[in-house]
């Protein structure tokens, strides 16, 4: 009779599925790269050679079917992961000198070793974008990815406080900066370079130059995802990111309040104008459950971001409640996904990360490669 849901039973079930060539099984061949359980939902990915990914859909379905037989499973989501040798646009080195060079033949900022760069943005400030960015980054890490976090909010860097990091990053040889490490994330922020109480009073060109350095001159190492905490709005930093950085996707954070949603739609329109795929909307401060009486209050209204996402045709990634624990842990520098990984809130962030990862790896973001530019 159906076994109980656990990582072990999922792997047992996957052992009944033959490998891509009909030999062995997925687990013993080492093709199952991660198993994530969240709220009776199961996610896992199967590594396959990139060129065969299209033909292996039946394998993916068979693996899903095998796991569905386990008791207590609401849904199963298997993703085929192309083997790393394929490389992503972001990870390609710049070819210099050749006549027919790829589109990254100019001032484009190349961040070597980073597979996907994902921007976390909001139209308006104060919607919890940085808290979401930090916990999303930790969510990616929780599902087995190697993750960096770049705080691109030059004027109001929040990431050092949110991760409880202080001190100055080390300068390696030349002009390369070694990123700080917080909860396993490689982290860079303007906040490491100026004191928390000191304002950065700069015009646009200085901001762009600082941002460029934090991307190019930081030894990020090999990362699956670099999460970028964007400043609010649609200004200098956003333009630079859109024009010079190979963004794999953007996540838009909003509260359900109309006032915030108006600006979130502007953020969406901006990314669409510059052909950056939008991975989806996250609704933050979605609802409030009173800790003493259990009554639910929709302080900023509820469901606005989900409704907007549906109306605008972008995925809805999840709703995060307004909860004292998230706020307290954030201010203490112990983000909830790291400090309380088993809490229901952490599961939501992991869920959002899993959906983003599936879209990035599954090629469903609608991203198209820039055209080849050939100069004879």
């Amino acid at each position, binding site marked *: 009779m159906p076994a109980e849901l656990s990582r072990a039973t999922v792997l047992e079930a996957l052992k009944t599925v033959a490998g891509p060539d009909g030999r062995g099984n997925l687990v013993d061949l080492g093709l199952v790269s991660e198993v994530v359980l969240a709220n009776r939902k199961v996610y896992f990915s199967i590594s396959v050679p990139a060129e065969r990914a299209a033909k292996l859909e039946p394998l993916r379905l068979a693996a899903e079917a095998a796991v569905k037989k386990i008791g207590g499973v609401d849904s199963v989501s298997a993703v085929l992961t192309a083997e790393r040798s394929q490389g992503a646009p972001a990870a390609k080195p710049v070819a210099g000198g050749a006549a027919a060079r790829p589109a990254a033949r*100019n001032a*484009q900022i190349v961040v070597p070793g980073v597979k996907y760069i994902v921007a976390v943005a909001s139209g308006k400030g104060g919607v919890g974008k940085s808290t979401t960015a930090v916990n999303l980054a930790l969510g990616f890490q929780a599902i087995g990815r190697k993750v960096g976090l770049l705080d691109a909010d030059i004027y109001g860097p929040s990431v050092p406080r949110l991760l409880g990091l202080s001190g100055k990053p080390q300068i390696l040889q030349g002009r390369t900066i070694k990123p700080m490490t917080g909860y396993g994330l490689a982290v860079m922020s303007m906040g490491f370079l100026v004191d928390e109480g000191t304002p950065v009073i700069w015009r646009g060109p200085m901001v762009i130059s600082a941002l460029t350095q934090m991307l190019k001159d930081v030894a990020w190492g090999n990362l699956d995802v670099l999460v970028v905490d964007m400043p609010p709005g649609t200004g200098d930093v956003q333009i630079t990111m859109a024009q010079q950085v190979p963004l794999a996707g953007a996540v838009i954070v909003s509260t359900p309040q109309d006032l915030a949603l108006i600006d979130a739609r502007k953020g969406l329109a901006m990314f669409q104008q510059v052909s950056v795929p939008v991975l989806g909307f996250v609704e933050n401060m979605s609802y409030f459950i009173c800790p003493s009486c259990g009554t639910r209050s929709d302080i900023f209204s509820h469901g606005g971001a989900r409704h907007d996402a549906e109306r605008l045709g972008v995925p809805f990634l999840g709703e995060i409640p307004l909860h004292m624990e998230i706020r307290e842990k954030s201010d203490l520098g112990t983000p909830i996904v790291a400090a309380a990984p088993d809490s229901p809130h952490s599961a939501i962030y992991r869920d959002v990360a899993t959906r983003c990862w599936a879209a990035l790896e599954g090629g469903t973001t609608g*991203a*198209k490669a*820039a055209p080849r530019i050939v100069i*004879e």
Partner: protein
Amino acid sequence: MSDSGKDIWPTEIKLAAGKRALTIAFDDGTSFEIPAELLRVMSPSAEVQGHSPEQRVTVGNKRNVGIRDVRAIGNYAVQIVFDDGHDTGFYRWAYLHDLGRHESDHWQRYLDDLAAKGLVRG
């Protein structure tokens, strides 16, 4: 996922050795050779288009303009550097497709504008 995915998308942008035209192939199978002169006088730059149709500038004496460089702008446009120094136009994919598809209309409008303002192609 986003609307951009459904839009027309170029696969290759080629600047031939003569530097006098761009050949652009799109993913719908179409391909256009657009002369540098037309690209220059139709530059989407605010220096040419102004900030409203009334501010549009008709550019004369560009018959012999050439293209010095073509640079990618993010994933959505190219910047064309002309040999007369003009480089502030970012050409989006849809704009390039429209220039190619309706080339004769754009030419006619350009020639009419020149005539109306007493300018010449040079």
